[in-house]
């Protein structure tokens, strides 16, 4: 059991990569706080874990709301006694518009959830990790954190920003034994990518075709990201800190 006796909080755990990670972390022995803005989805994933004999609870939180971010951390510590792993994974794709046409409301929403939400999660989790003698934080960036994205100025800004958050916190808390790393997924077959494909005017754009553009010629599966997150969460990654891991089938190598 690679996460035996660990307590992990995962945001955006009601679907996609977050759900895959919640199931995997629980199977590896972690008690998991399953957080999602969709309460029913969070409760369902938590139920799935407990039905399999794992430890979990589900809870609704809007990560861009400081009160919610604080509450999800405090509730986790209340229920499980500590916090060892924070996986800041919740994110939205936002509107698809060129920079000069992007709306102010749309910009604020994407930055609020995808960037401010990641910072808030760290802000409230870190004091508990210091108490626990260390911890591991995993932030979901994106290949859009490493390059530009047509029609996604706010998304690219937020995901680039997550890399800044990751490196900065990694330096600040290295001596506290808190490791902070980021994963940059390429096209992963999740509900979010399905929505992005559906936005495209061309019917030929699908999750499969977006994956076909990567050197590996296919989209990734949420479980393939969850396995990397598991490694980073576990003590096997005890010297991995401030790392930016592109898990993208080779997309950013091109």
């Amino acid at each position, binding site marked *: 059991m690679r996460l035996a006796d660990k307590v992990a909080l995962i945001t955006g755990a009601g679907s996609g990569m977050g759900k895959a990670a919640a199931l995997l972390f629980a199977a590896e022995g972690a008690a998991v706080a399953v957080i999602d803005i969709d309460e029913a989805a969070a409760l369902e994933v938590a139920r799935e874990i407990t039905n399999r004999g794992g430890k979990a609870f589900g809870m609704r939180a809007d990560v861009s709301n*400081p009160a919610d971010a604080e509450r999800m951390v405090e509730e986790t510590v209340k229920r499980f006694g500590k916090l060892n792993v924070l996986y800041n994974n919740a994110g939205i794709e936002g509107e698809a518009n*060129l*920079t*000069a046409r*992007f709306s*102010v409301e749309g*910009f*604020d929403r994407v*930055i609020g959830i995808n*960037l*401010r939400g990641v*910072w808030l999660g*760290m*802000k*409230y989790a*870190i*004091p508990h990790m*210091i108490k626990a003698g260390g911890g591991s934080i995993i932030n979901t960036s994106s290949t*859009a*954190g490493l*390059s*530009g*994205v*047509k*029609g*996604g*100025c*706010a*998304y*690219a*800004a*937020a*995901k*680039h*920003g*997550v*890399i*800044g*958050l990751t*490196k*900065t*916190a*990694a*330096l*600040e*808390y290295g001596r506290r034994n808190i490791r902070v790393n980021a994963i940059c997924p390429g096209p992963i077959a999740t509900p979010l990518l399905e929505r992005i494909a559906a936005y495209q005017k061309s019917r030929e754009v699908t999750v499969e075709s977006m994956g076909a553009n990567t050197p590996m010629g296919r989209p990734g599966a949420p479980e393939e990201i969850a396995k990397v997150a598991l490694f980073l969460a576990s003590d096997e990654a005890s010297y991995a800190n*401030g790392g930016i891991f592109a898990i993208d089938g080779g997309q950013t190598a091109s």
Partner: protein
Amino acid sequence: MALLKDKVALVTGGGSGIGRATALIFAREGAKLVVADLNRKGAEETVAMVAKAGTEAITVECDVLKPGAAEELVRRAVNHFGRLDCAFNNAGVAGELARTAESTEENWDFVVGVDLKSVWLCMKHEIAQMLKQKSGAIVNTASIAGLGANPLGIAYSAAKHGVLGLTRTAAVEYAKIPIRVNAVCPGVTQTPMVEAGIARRPSMRAVFNKLHPMGRLGRAEEIGEAVAWLCSDAASFVTGVALPVDGGFTAI
């Protein structure tokens, strides 16, 4: 040949530091100037400095965070000069010194507002004008904190990384027009913003010097020279880059 002869160039944060130094270099290279700053007096001083050399320049008092301010800024520039060729989105703030868990929401919203959102808002309206002209060059001020960690400044680091996301995205979106969009990533530079920080912790000067392989801080003019080049037709095939001007800081 002057690099920016007869071009109309806009500089935000033009009342001091890197913005002022760049405005002076833009003027030296033949540009007409729109100098915007929150601090009207600073902007007026910059305009007075270039006017002496015969450069046509206007001042715009501008709080880039205020709704409608970026749109108004571009409108004033175009009303006066008829066009906008170059824009240097440079206004920025450093924010408080605190570790991630101790940094405040107020600081986050202020720093991300000025250093990230306002850069996007300025780009949004500059690009709208440049699309009409079917040409333009934009340079955004990122930072070495946009390329690596920035201990005790999480919001600044997030915002400056984010500026590179904006820069690369807009560069790709408008490459065929062509509107070129680049970022400059200054190392620690002798500006009022940095000097204010050092004044609070004087021991930081030696630390900063040591962090740069060249053993010293940058001069604002050294950033301005790079910005002028990126804005000029000499850089006609350069778009989407994050150019460090940092005395080697990011090479180690």
